[in-house]
């Protein structure tokens, strides 16, 4: 069963003009400023006088700039663009005792990733994201969303030398994610997104992801919003099973595929809130506000407006920075216009569209 998703109202801005409220958000990653990449290189160069402290300062500065960029675009909830993270598995594996790194492995062509190995029991040591969250909250005037790589993906994209099965490793990691969320909530976090892209490649493991989520949300207060992000999969293979996930919101890319799969989610009734990708992150062409409005209306086939969140398909880090910004700005504009049209009764919510209780 989905959790009680009544927690979305806390993200409605005070000065929101419309009666309807489509929560606008992003998945997480954002293009890094060029100078930050240069700073990373310098920090790795033993001959340079650029220290880890300098790099930390550069990361802080980048987080300030990108958080502000999110706010300027008008988003209701913001992130820091994951400025401190290079890769979604490595970042966490470096912080979890039990992991070791042996060197890069090929993904494709000359693109590599430091795929880590789990060589002992995974443990919770220092918090992973609490400092990052506190910093971003301090500089942000909007609520901050925290993306965390999910335990199933952390397990699947590692070498498992220690646990009897990948599922056992995923469950052990899920307990650590639960501990991290507890710390984040204590620090004031109200919106957490679990990223599980690996589920898209092995959808038959949906029950393992379900069990992981049960462990992740254990003891997490209802007012904390829990989202699950999955991308580029065949959703008929995890739907309707995902209705049983204990989440508030399911975040999915569908813009890239031209909403070919949207009907998958219409029968049976979709239970969690839907966070729908309404701009494509794999094309540098900026969608117009009108186009995005049509994409948002695709979401209304699945859920009523009270349960619809809008976001880009996925992290936008591979786009040119100005394109990423323009997509966010147009997305927010489109959401506000759709809200106004809903207020005015100009959008006919088809009788077949499920209504909230």
């Amino acid at each position, binding site marked *: 069963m989905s959790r009680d998703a009544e927690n979305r109202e806390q993200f409605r801005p005070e000065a929101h003009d419309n009666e309807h409220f489509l929560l606008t958000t992003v998945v997480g990653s954002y293009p890094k400023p060029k100078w930050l990449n240069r700073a990373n290189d310098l920090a790795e160069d033993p001959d340079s006088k650029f220290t880890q402290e300098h790099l930390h300062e550069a990361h802080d500065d980048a987080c300030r700039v990108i958080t502000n960029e999110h706010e300027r675009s008008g988003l209701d909830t913001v992130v820091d663009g994951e400025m401190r993270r290079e890769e979604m598995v490595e970042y966490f594996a470096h912080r979890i005792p039990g992991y070791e790194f042996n*060197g*890069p*492995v*090929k993904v494709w*062509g*000359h693109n590599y990733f430091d795929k880590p*190995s789990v060589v002992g029991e995974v443990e919770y040591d220092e918090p992973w994201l609490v400092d990052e969250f506190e910093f971003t909250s301090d500089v942000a005037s909007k609520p901050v969303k925290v993306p965390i790589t999910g335990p199933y993906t952390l397990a699947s994209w590692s*070498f498992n030398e220690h646990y009897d099965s990948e599922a056992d490793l995923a469950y052990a990691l899920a307990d650590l994610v639960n501990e991290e969320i507890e710390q984040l909530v204590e620090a004031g976090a109200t919106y957490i997104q679990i990223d599980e892209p*690996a589920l898209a*490649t092995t959808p038959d493991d949906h029950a393992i992801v379900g069990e992981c989520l049960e462990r992740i949300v254990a003891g997490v207060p209802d007012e904390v919003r829990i989202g699950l992000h999955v991308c580029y999969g065949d959703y008929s293979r995890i739907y309707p099973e995902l209705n049983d996930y204990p989440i508030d919101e399911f975040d999915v890319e569908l813009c890239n595929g031209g909403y070919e799969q949207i009907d998958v989610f219409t029968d049976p009734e979709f239970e969690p809130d839907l966070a729908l990708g309404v701009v494509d992150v794999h094309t540098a062409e900026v969608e117009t506000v009108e186009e995005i409005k049509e994409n948002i209306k695709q979401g209304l086939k699945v859920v009523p407006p009270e349960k619809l969140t809008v976001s880009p398909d996925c992290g936008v880090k591979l786009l040119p920075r100005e394109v990423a910004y323009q997509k966010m700005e147009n997305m927010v504009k489109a959401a506000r216009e759709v809200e106004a049209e809903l207020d005015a009764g100009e959008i006919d919510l088809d009788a077949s569209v499920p209504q909230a209780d």
Partner: protein
Amino acid sequence: MTELVSTTPGLYPLPDWAKQELSDLKGHQKHDLISGNEGADIVSAYDRAREEVVSEQTDAGLDRVVEGQLRWDDMLAHPLTVHENVETGGIVRYYDNNNFYRDPQVRGELTFSGDVAAELDATADLLGDESLQAVLPGPYSLSDLATDEYYGDEADFLDAVSEFLAGEVDAFPEHETLFLLEPSLVFSPPGEDVDDRVPEAISAVSDATDADVVVHTYWGALDEKVYAHLMDADVDAIGFDFVAGDRDQTLYNINEYGTKDDIALGLVDGQNTLVEDPETVRERVEWTLDQVQSQTFDTAYVTSNTELFYLPENRATEKLAALAAATEDELEVEA
């Protein structure tokens, strides 16, 4: 007494220095990948990398030495992606892995290429008394990984790929063994249209060499019917994955339908950094051979189940040593 021969199915990880050097020379994008007519700097980097992985194998004492297929940016699809009548399309997932290759779209006749023969010539020059092992995708897997936009019919395309591979093999320098990798037989088994043509397609490649030919399968057990057909192929051994997937089904197939006089045993995990002890590998060899009640073998190839490029360089090297040590005559294991 079964002779144990240590080997690998090839496709090694690039040495870490070569990962860096080649990514600087070639770039990271789709159009930067290997085309078959690379410049002198790139050729030189691959030559040095080849020399390194060849000496790693000879130092480890492997009984068969492979070229390492370090240039195969598109993994098993490589022999087609560098072909002049093939265009490369989008990046597509390589089986169930977090790896991707360029979709080879066959737009014209699959004429002789000689790309793999050139790699093997360079390898043969590096070897003394050691035995060279050639590696190719099997015809079914190569046709399964590709998109046919020329031959039009699945069976005709399979035959064309098979004829192409046979032509390539014909140009190979002298080699002791040829491994034909056929993971698609497990991963996406042939349908009824072509399943009885697969053994013929494999035999056609096999007939192009005097070397011992092993058709190696992995990522699980073969479907019973696919296995029964495969037994009709004119090869010296079939290789089985005893790491991933259903061991019982594999043993059932072997005991029910018999197998060739030689066998290849995928017993070292090509996709996990945990390095097996030689004793553990040897125990697995003996356990597996014990499970085949119906026959004894002249030769058992002891190998990793999959290609090795999934591993970081250090662990891949350690696995070579484990394989070589596991097949030493003097290694003793508690029965």
